[in-house]
C-alpha cells in the first residue's frame, strides 16, 4: 500500500492522490489530518529488530507500516482532536509530545517518502530564506545578496536586497528526486536545482526563480511543500515513478 498524508484542506495533495491512482499506484490510501486526529488506536513499537506501527482510524481502516511501500507526505502539524481539551498548563507539553511522536512515525515509514520528516518540519526541513540563499549559491544557482538584520532600522525584518524585482515573472521548478519539472528550464538551472535538492537532502522541492526579459533566472525561494498542480501531468508521472521505484 502507498499513502498520501496531508492536511485536510490540502487540495494539491488530493489532486495528487487522484493522479497517482490514475497511474496505477495502488492500493493508495488518502489519510488526512482529520483522519489522524480521530485515530482510535496508535501502536508504535521500536526495538533492535526495527520499527512497527499500526494505526486504527475511526473509519475502520488499519494502516500497518509492514504493508506500506511508500508515501507522499505533506503533513504540517501533528493533529489531535483531543488536544483542545487538554488543561491549559499541559497543552504546550501535549502538543510537543504529539509532534515528536509523529516525527518518529513518519520517519519510520518504509519505502520512498516524499518528503521524509525532519525535526525542522514534518514534511521536510523548513529553512530560513538566508539558508536557502546560502545553499542555492553552493548549488551554483544565480542568487542575489541577502541581508538579515536585528537592527531597528530594518523594522526587525530581513531586508531582501533585490532577490527579485517586484514585477518579475515567477518561474517555479519542481524537483522530484533527480527529475526537474517546469517549462523551458535552462540546463544550468536544472542542474543547480538537482544539486540544491542533494544539498538540502530533500527529495521533493518547489524552487522559485525570478526571470528577467533577457531570460536570466535568479533564485528567490524554495519550499518542501510546493503546490504540486504547477507541475501538471509530468510531476504526477515523476512522483509515481519515484514512489514505485520505476
Amino acid at each position, binding site marked *: 500500500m502507498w499513502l498520501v498524508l496531508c492536511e485536510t484542506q490540502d487540495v494539491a495533495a488530493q489532486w495528487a492522490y487522484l493522479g497517482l491512482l490514475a497511474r496505477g499506484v495502488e492500493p493508495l490510501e488518502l489519510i488526512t489530518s482529520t483522519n489522524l486526529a480521530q485515530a482510535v488506536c496508535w501502536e508504535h513499537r*521500536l526495538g533492535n529488530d526495527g520499527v512497527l506501527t499500526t494505526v486504527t482510524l475511526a473509519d475502520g481502516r488499519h494502516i500497518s507500516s509492514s504493508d506500506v511501500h511508500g508515501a507522499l507526505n505533506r503533513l504540517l502539524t501533528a493533529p489531535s482532536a483531543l*488536544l483542545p481539551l487538554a488543561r491549559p498548563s499541559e497543552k504546550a*507539553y501535549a502538543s*510537543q*509530545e504529539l509532534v515528536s511522536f509523529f516525527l518518529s512515525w513518519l520517519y519510520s515509514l518504509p519505502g520512498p517518502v516524499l518528503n521524509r520528516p525532519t525535526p525542522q518540519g514534518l514534511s521536510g526541513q523548513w529553512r530560513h530564506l538566508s539558508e536557502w540563499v546560502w545553499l542555492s549559491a553552493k548549488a551554483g544557482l544565480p542568487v542575489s545578496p541577502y541581508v538579515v538584520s536585528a537592527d531597528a532600522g530594518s523594522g526587525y525584518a530581513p531586508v531582501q536586497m533585490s532577490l527579485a524585482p517586484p514585477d518579475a515573472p515567477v518561474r517555479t521548478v519542481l524537483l522530484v528526486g533527480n527529475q526537474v519539472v517546469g517549462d523551458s528550464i535552462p540546463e544550468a538551472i536544472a542542474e543547480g536545482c538537482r544539486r540544491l535538492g542533494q544539498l538540502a537532502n530533500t527529495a521533493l522541492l518547489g524552487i522559485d526563480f525570478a526571470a528577467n526579459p533577457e531570460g536570466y533566472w535568479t533564485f528567490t525561494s524554495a519550499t518542501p511543500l510546493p503546490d504540486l498542480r504547477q507541475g501538471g501531468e509530468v510531476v504526477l508521472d515523476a512522483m509515481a515513478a519515484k514512489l514505485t521505484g520505476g
Partner: protein
Amino acid sequence: MVLLCGIPSESPLAMVAAQLRRLGVPHVFFNQRHVARTDMWFTVSRGHVTGRLNLDGRTYRLEDFRGVYTRLMDDRALPEMRDEPEDSEKSRHSHALHDTLMQWCEVTPARVVNRTAPMGSNSSKPYQAQLIRKHGFSIPETLITNDPELVRQFLSRHQQLIYKSISGIRSIVETLDESALARLGHIRWCPTQFQEYIPGKNLRVHTIDSRVFATAVVSNVTDYRYAHLQKGGETELSATELSEQLVQRCLRLSQGLGLSFAGIDLKVTPDERVYCLEVNPSPAFSYYESNTGQPIAEAVARFLSGHWV
C-alpha cells in the same frame, strides 16, 4: 576569536570561558541579559557570509569568529523580558536579535557547538532512537501507544517498564509502578512512551570532536539526574575508560548526528551489551566535570579555538 552565547554565569559557559582565558584565546560574550545593547546583521552573498555584531558599544566582524558556543535560553524567559508585552519594541528587538543569531549559526563557516538543525534529533526520543540504532547501538524495546491494554501486555512481557516524555521537554524518568498503572487510562488522551527497563551500569560519554570522556554513574534511583530530589537518592560519578571499539562507535554516532559536542547516555548490561538511551546535543557537562575532574571544558575550548592548542 570565539563567541560565547548565553548567560555568562551559567556553569558550562563560565567553565568554557575560564578555559579560553587560561589558553589565551580571545573571546566575547553574546550576553542575553544585554540584548538591549546588542545589534547584529549579516549578508549572504555568493555563498559567503559576512556581517557585524555590536556588543555593548564595540563592533566585531562576524567573519572573525572561528568558534561559537551556544547555551541560549528562551529569550522570553529572561528576567529583562519577563514583563515585556510581546509586541513592545524591546521584545521585537530581542526576538529579531536571537533569530538573526540563530540564522547566522546555520550558515557561518565557524565551528558551531552545536548548530540548530542537528540538535533537533533530541526533540523526539523515538526518532533519535532510530538514528542511534543505525549506528550500531542497542536500543530498549519501546512502545508508544494510547491503548492501556497494549501497555499491560508489554509489561507482562518485560516485567519492568519505565515511562518518559517522547519530546525533548525534560521529564523525570519513572518506573511504571502500581500507582502509575492506576492512572493508565490517561494515555487515551495522548500516545505515551513506555520502555523495557534496562538493568546495568550507567555511563555518560561526552564526545568533543575526536576526544571522548566517559563517566561511570552509580545511583540508587531510576533517573540519576534527579537523585537529589528523591528521599535517600544518591549518585556517585567517576571517570572511566571505554574500549577502543566503543570509543569509535560513540564518535561515529556523534558525527553521524552532526554534533561536534554530545553527551551520550549508555547503559551496559551485566552481559556487557551496550544500550544507548539518548544523545544530548547540548550537554550540561559541568555536573560531570565538577564531580570527576575530567577536562571537558578545556576540550570544548580547544575545539572552539580552531586547533588543539
